[in-house]
């Protein structure tokens, strides 16, 4: 026992994660769900054992390395992944094994980040390499990408598909953190007044325009409204944190609004998205079908939900990727939905705590940027499936089915924990 003193909080929290996972699996056994019964008993049991083993092993490794980083983040994200795995096992049993392999890939990426990036501050030195890489990746996707679910965001690597925007978004946050840290003072000084409205000087809005352009490229060429929204939202948050100037936010939002308006008039797929958002009931059996099915799932779940395995979330098309939150909310009700949202709030809270405690401006910006990225992405998809925002096909971090998303989420977790371990 003495050997395991460092991460005691994490260990005690882990009891609940494992309990949660197995209770979820147990619920599925009780449910006599048709799709699940077909898979038999063996697979879920094996599945539960492997996942429990993987999660515990990561904790033990962190303990063994005497890693002094945050003790709350990993149990929280594990909780989310456990919920995601149970839901995927329930929704698409055939995908569950693949998802657990992705989880292991994510955990490996997480451990690698924590272990190999002992001095994360060195990330600051290669900022132009990042932006270059990001642009190459995006360009490659546009040129060689394959389309899935209406968005052209994947590169086919033969054995698996890889969603470039998932890795690009991390690279971008690292780039922005180093760029903004370097230019912080200049950016803060350089504002003028234009008819009483503070406007950043022309020479300082260059990066703003680059980010704007990048988002529009995503929007136009990849038809990926969600990722564009996440990129730009994260960017605005980071520039505000580094400068404290609302003028950047105002100007940036204006630019984004302008771009979005132009796209609305030039591209029919954007118009369709907006029309569905405003009134999906008008085309209930056609374009509005998916979001309406999601609303039905949420409403039918009510306060306490139907119980895991007892609802009918399979009525929603693509439920295991974009709509896993709707499925979860149908079967666990408002209570379960709020629980998940609160877990995200805790993660975000810890993320900003790490940012506040960081020793360098770069560390603080990086932590805040990663946290904001996570928050914006969660808000965009949760808002999307509840029709609070236009629906965009982004994943729910740590929960949705999807390898690229899971791996990138765990890399972000690794970075956050690395920053928290400094000093």
């Amino acid at each position, binding site marked *: 026992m003495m050997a395991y003193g460092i991460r005691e909080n994490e260990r005690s929290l882990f009891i609940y994660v494992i309990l949660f996972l197995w209770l979820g699996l147990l619920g599925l056994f009780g449910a006599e769900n048709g799709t699940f019964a077909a898979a038999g008993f063996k697979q879920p049991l094996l599945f539960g054992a492997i996942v429990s083993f993987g999660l515990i092993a990561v904790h033990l490794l962190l303990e063994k390395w005497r890693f002094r980083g945050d003790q709350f983040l990993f149990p929280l994200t594990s909780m989310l992944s456990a919920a995601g795995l149970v839901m995927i096992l329930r929704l698409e049993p055939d995908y569950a094994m693949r998802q657990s392999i992705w989880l292991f890939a994510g955990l490996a990426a997480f451990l690698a980040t924590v272990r190999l990036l002992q001095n994360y501050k060195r990330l600051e030195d290669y900022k132009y390499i990042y932006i270059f890489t990001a642009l190459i990746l995006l360009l490659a996707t546009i040129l060689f990408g394959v389309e899935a679910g209406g968005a052209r965001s994947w590169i086919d690597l033969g054995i698996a598909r890889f969603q470039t925007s998932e890795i690009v978004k991390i690279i971008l946050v690292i780039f922005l953190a180093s760029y903004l840290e370097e230019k912080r003072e200049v950016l803060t000084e350089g504002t003028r007044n234009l008819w009483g409205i503070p406007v950043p000087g022309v020479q300082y809005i260059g990066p703003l325009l680059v980010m704007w352009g990048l988002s529009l490229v995503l929007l136009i060429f990849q038809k990926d409204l969600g990722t564009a929204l996440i990129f730009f939202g994260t960017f605005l948050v980071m520039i505000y944190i580094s400068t404290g100037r609302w003028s950047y936010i105002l100007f940036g939002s204006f630019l984004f609004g302008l771009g979005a308006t132009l796209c609305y008039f030039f591209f029919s797929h954007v118009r369709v998205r907006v029309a569905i958002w405003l009134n999906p009931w008008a085309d209930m059996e056609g374009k509005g079908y998916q979001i309406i099915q999601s609303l039905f799932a949420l409403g039918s779940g009510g306060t306490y939900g139907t119980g895991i395995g007892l609802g*009918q979330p399979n*009525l929603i098309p693509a439920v295991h990727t974009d709509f896993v939150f709707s499925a979860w*909310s149908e079967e666990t009700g408002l209570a379960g*939905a709020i629980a998940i949202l609160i877990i995200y709030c805790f993660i975000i809270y810890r993320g900003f705590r790490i940012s506040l405690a960081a020793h360098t401006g770069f560390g603080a910006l990086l932590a805040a940027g990663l946290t904001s990225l996570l928050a914006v992405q969660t808000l965009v998809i949760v808002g999307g499936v509840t029709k609070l925002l236009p629906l965009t096909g982004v994943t729910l971090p740590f929960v949705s089915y999807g390898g690229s998303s899971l791996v990138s989420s765990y890399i972000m977790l690794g970075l956050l924990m690395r920053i928290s371990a400094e000093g």
Partner: protein
Amino acid sequence: MMNRNIVVVAGLIMAAFFINIVYMTYLQVFRSDELLNHPRNRRLQILEEKILRGKISDSRDRVLAETIISGESGKRVYPYGEITGNVTGYLSRKLGRWGLEAVYNQELLGLDSGLAGDGSWALNMLDTGKPGNDIVLSLDAELQKTAYDMLGNRKGAVVALEPGTGRILVMVSKPGFDPGQIESQWESLRIHPDSPLLNRAAQGLYPPGSTMKVVTAAGILAEQPDTVSRTFEAPGYIEVEGRRIEDRQAKGKLSLAEAMARSSNYVFASLGMELGAAKFVAAAYSFGIGKELPLETTAAQSRIPEPGEMSELELAETAIGQGRLLVTPLNMAVVAAAVANGGKVMKPSLVDEVRGPGGGVIRSFKAEQILTPVSAETAGIIRELMVAAVANGTGRAASIPGVQVAGKTGSAENPHGSAHAWFIGFAPAENSEVAVAVIVENGGAGGTEAAPIAREIMKKVIRQ
């Protein structure tokens, strides 16, 4: 400096999450019922196909609707077919639900066990073997059949209810439809000129003709109790604003009782005008005419013009049941029941009990007074007038040997051909067991066409 910015951003993000939580609450709590019951939400349908839907039976355990399992799927059968189709309603995957099948859908599926208001619980009951609840009606299917058969090939409606409780014993609409054949016959039923899909008893709107004189009498007696001892000199017609309303059957010196017995248009049109539009319409409202009358299934609201919109002529016409006044047969049965029950209107109802699959009573109907149009005293006077109308007036065909019957006939002129034959009444006059309203469309005189049907129903209820 940067720390402050981080706190601001964290606060904003938390606020956004809070908004999301509030919105989720709105969707999952406040819009839950609406979304769960939305016709395009297939969840309830999926559930329904797994649940053995409960029976609908009459007060004597005769089955009106039940689901019989044949092989994999269940088939809904309606043993009384078109006789009770207007009450049970129908159930079809293609056409949806209507009637009691629609109103009591949740109960019949067993999804209502005290968990209303939260849709999640409904889905939680996904217990494939468990049958739904049964609905027991106040209806008497054999009485219903008697009324249905007596209408023969005439169109019309019959309503009979218990004055003291409001329990509906008969609710016939003819022509009817067979809910078991609804899908195959839908098109022809829909375009049929006699509208068999309309539940005439509760949704049909007709001029009440002279049966309205009961309401007019109630209005004037409540206002001027001494009217009962007045005598009238009836000239055989009445002229209002240059229009002459004929009244040949009641000429000469008439007491109020004689005026009612011989259905004097002169006397009741005059009394209506004496009462004035405002008080007359208020009297009609007090019987539920022009007001919403509650019922488990779809019911139309009787229509009476606003007092301000009525000319003197229209007031005179309305007082004798013509003009723009339109009532449902159910409403006229309620008028008769109000007089029978000492001036108290009980809420009309079709459903007695909801029983669980084991037969235990889950919910039972309680009699509820909804209106008090007249005092017990005034009701007593009107009853005597109605007794006279059956004993030696137009309603003789309703009399039953050994039982005092109260009633009023009507022949309502209408633009669709001969007059509608009406009879409303109750028996026995004291401590009534049953109140009825009968309408035979374009049947002519109420005394010969409608009264015999009412008589048969009242006789059967009393003999039981």
